[in-house]
């Protein structure tokens, strides 16, 4: 009878845990469901963690560039407001972005398909990471932009500017060319309405070509975007800027 009792007890425990975990799982799924109900389809509840970082990329982007819907114009314009996020306008139109606008850095036929790397004139292509409903604002205070970049500060453009990171590299950088609408990020591409409402969105790109880098030396460069609502962080080296290291060997 003892073994029966032990068996009975074991079954009871099993049953207990079955019910216990069943209930728990139920509660868990319930709360998660409830949570999902509270979420907006269009916009995350909090965006404090996705501060606008700038990202540099080199080649992978190209295949995406062929599709566009609406001509955005080659001149920078102001924000193109396509209604409130929550309104029932449905899918929003997106500005197209022509690859040719990137000039020699477009990597198209007839141009250099190695993005200038072969000739020691490397191209970098920069974008601002997408953030739903984010409207970057041009710098209000021109003083924040370095002197060399002042010429490119204009209305409706978020300027980007690269310069040497170390003092001693100042003379070795040479000329830097910027390609793209207004040589920066034009405002008509903003805001982004999210995956659901803006499926064909393309963000503006800026190509940066270093045309006269000193060979055989390690050079450190830092590129920054300038905007009234773009911050930099000590901890996050990719928030609002990026840095890059070149060593071009003469072959």
């Amino acid at each position, binding site marked *: 009878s003892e073994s029966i009792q032990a068996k009975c*007890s074991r079954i009871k*425990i099993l049953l207990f845990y079955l019910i216990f*975990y069943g209930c728990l799982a139920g509660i868990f799924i319930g709360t998660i469901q409830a949570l999902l109900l509270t979420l907006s389809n269009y916009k*995350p509840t909090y965006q404090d963690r*996705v501060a606008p970082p700038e*990202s540099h990329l080199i080649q992978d982007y190209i295949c995406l560039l062929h599709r566009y819907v609406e001509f955005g114009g080659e001149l920078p314009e102001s924000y193109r407001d396509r209604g409130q996020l929550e309104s029932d306008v449905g899918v929003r139109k997106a500005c197209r972005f022509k690859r040719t606008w990137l000039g020699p850095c477009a990597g198209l036929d007839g141009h250099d398909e190695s993005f200038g790397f072969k000739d020691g004139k490397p191209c970098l292509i920069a974008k601002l990471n997408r953030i739903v409903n984010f409207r970057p604002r041009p710098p209000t205070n021109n003083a924040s932009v370095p002197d060399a970049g002042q010429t490119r500060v204009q209305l409706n453009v978020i300027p980007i500017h690269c310069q040497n990171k170390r003092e001693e590299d100042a003379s070795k950088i040479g000329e830097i060319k910027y390609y793209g609408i207004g040589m920066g990020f034009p405002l008509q591409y903003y805001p982004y309405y999210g995956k659901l409402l803006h499926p064909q969105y393309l963000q503006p790109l800026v190509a940066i070509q270093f045309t006269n880098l000193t060979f055989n030396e390690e050079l450190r460069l830092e590129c920054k975007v300038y905007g009234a609502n773009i911050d930099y962080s000590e901890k996050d080296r990719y928030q609002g800027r990026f840095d890059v290291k070149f060593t071009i060997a003469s072959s």
Partner: protein
Amino acid sequence: MRYTTSVTKGLTSSKAEEVLERDGPNELLPPKGTPEYVKFARQLAGGLQCLMWVAAVICFIAFGIEFSRGTLGCFDDLYLAITLITVVVVTGCFGYYQEFKSTNIIASFKNLVPQQALVIRDGQKNQINAMDLVVGDLVEIKGGDRVPADIRIIFAQGCKVDNSSLTGESEPQSKTPECTHENPLETKNIAFFSTTCLEGVATGTVINTGDRTIIGRIASLASGVGNEKTPIAIEIEHFVDIIAGLAIFFGFTFFVVAMFIGYAFLEAMIFFMAIVVAYVPEGLLATVTVCLSLTAKRLARKNCVVKNLEAVETLGSTSVICSDKTGTLTQNRMTVAHLWFDNVIHAADTTEDQSGQSFDQSSETWRSLARVAGLCNRAIFKPNQESLIVVGDASETALLKFTELAIGNMMEYRERFKKVVEVPFNSTNKFQLSVHELEDPMDLRYLLVMKGAPERILERCSTILIKGQEMPLDEQWRESFQTAYMDLGSLGERVLGFCHIYLNENEFPRGYKFDSDEMNFTTSGLCFAGLISMIDPPRATVPDAVMKCRTAGIRVVMVTGDHPITARAIAANVGIITEGSETVEDIATRKRIPVEQVNRRDARACVISGGQLKDMSSEELDEALRSHPEMVFARTSPQQKLIIVESCQRLGSIVAVTGDGVNDSPALKKADIGIAMGIAGSDAAKNAADMILLDDNFASIVTGVEQGRLIFDNLKKSIAYTLTKNIPELTPYLIYITVSVPLPLGCITILMIELATDIFPSVSLAYEKAESDIMHLKPRNPRKDRLVNESLAAYSYFQIGAIQSFAGFTDYFTAMAQEGWYPLLCVGLRSHWEDVHLQDLQDSYGQEWWVSVIEICQIADVLIRKTRRLSIFQQGFFRSVDVDSMEQMSLTPYIQSYTPCYVSFMKGWGQWWFVPIPYGILIFVYDEIRKLGVRRHPGSWWDQELYY
């Protein structure tokens, strides 16, 4: 002369110095103490500490592997290892400091009063430190002195010593110059170091000093008895075994799972190590140490000094207390308890302050009796002292105090009755008498007063005082005297008879030369005044304390050197033998059958004397202890105490032993917890003991037991709490491995939870008040009631831990979803999430993230305040809403869920504090239901499985 000394002049100073140089000072060397660094090392090598050392080593290895592979965040492992080591070292220092402090308290007793000795050197009497005595010194001792070394008596006058601390004999031994026995312990001409001279004077030569004295040899023997492992140390080892087993089991399982899923071997190895380390309860060590030392502090305030921290808990698991009688259960002073005069037994007040005398004092007989008691008395109040200090034999002291209270100012009273002659008590005539002038100067008669053994006194009487009238002492009176004498004797009291006579004025006129040796005066045909009986009464708090022990399921066994009848009377008085309990002999007399025919199991009580004990085999003793719940051992020697302790331990009890004499030290060491007396205890006893009672009071032990039980319960709660937390810390890692979500909880954040935020609630559990029934439960069975048992582990891990994990997941997925990562997207996201080169990872809204630098580490640990059995409401929830419970009830979960994100995001994370609250309520409700079930259905399946 053998010691190159002179019987009259003693040693010369130069010779004495020479010998001192050779033999060293006359003091007992403390038993070779453990070197300090060993003590410290011991603090670092306990069960938990070892676990943490192993974890630290694993961390170093993991760090080495990850560092060589250049993994991001590999420094976490290094920090973890360093933290682990720091925790061990810091708690080690703390424990060491605690022990050091209590050792200091004990050491402070020792040198309170340096003992002095009166020594004759160069023919001169000098008062020197007893430490400087050497062999051959001529010393003088008198009543009240402690014998400063082993001494051979060469001259003695009525010298009596109390050898109880050495041999356990409670009767004073007289010392004379004759050598009466070959055995130095038996012979009358040797007085021993550390015994006390009660009365008389003696001169002798020192024959042994320091460790070569008899007592020194016994003290060194005691260090040979091994120390037992404390129950808490055993429990912690058991706990570490469980933890290590579980850690390796889980680690290995997930190692296999990880390999199966397709991780590289090294990666799986690191998972394995991480899980093992995550299992180590880093905060527990600190919690245990803090809990124990807090309690030790609390106990010290209640007059128990704990030498060894772990002893605190041992006291709580005690199931048998072997207590001394004298001084521990009793007040250690003879007090008048009963008087018999006018054919009635009157009870006197025996409480500590003797404030109210309850009997009728109007009778003339009482006045005469009090006069005899006051006059026929050699005890005096020490001059120039508070009137409470009395010099004299214990019963005379009792009588003096009694008459002082009844009549008032005895010293002055005696002045009025001038003493003419006195015959001191001796063992042949067994009486003491003195002759006084009367206070009325006109009355020229002498008054002879006499006291002594009642039957001897009665022999000398021909009349008896009844209501102030002398009546002839006929058979009827003799019989009532016998009855009264028997009655008082059976109460275990020491009875004295008192009589007096007015000497005939003509036969003994003023100036008559009384001769104390010849006794040239009337000593028969006296007038009997009455009987006075004395006892060393129990301390007022003791009966309550014994009662408490009984309800707490603790047996109190009295072990005393006293006479069985006295022992039994006191035992009955304090409740060690309860009302209605009978011994085998009682049953035999009641049923009028021979002792052999009585069923031994019928007798609850049993009084065994040292003589009987000597003839018993250990099995017989075990059997006696098993069959009689109420035991008194009388006339036992300290060696027999050890036998009794061993027997109790054989029966599976955890034994606490009290002791004061040097000879008790083996028993004190052998016992699970040895308790030495702070006032009466010898240094050797204090050294051997684990705990010291500063006030020698039995009731303090009971307080200690309560604290010990409390600490066990609270430690259990702390551990349940700590273990519970382990699961919600571990499960994020498990889902990280298995379903590849981004790591919810980083290593450093775990450390923060363990060591920064969680210590406080863990420790505050140590402050928990006792659940109200703590002293009504049986002492825990060390074999069954473990600190950590299956149900506690199951409860913490699989019930509360599970709920908390789900709470954590909910919070995690909420945080992720609200930031843009839907739960389903998270699954399998790990490799992208950790990809350093992927800088535009898209979330559910199409936003692009550069995530490697961002740790979303939000997870909540929902806490509840835990009581094991009683509902929070029963425990007086509203009463205890102080800082303590506030912290536990409300603050902690918030602090906890908040803290994990201290690293990068100090602001803006408050919004997720409240997510796990429903789970908090769930835990609360579940726990209350569980406790309700445990209380409603004790012994049921629910109780067995769910009560820890």
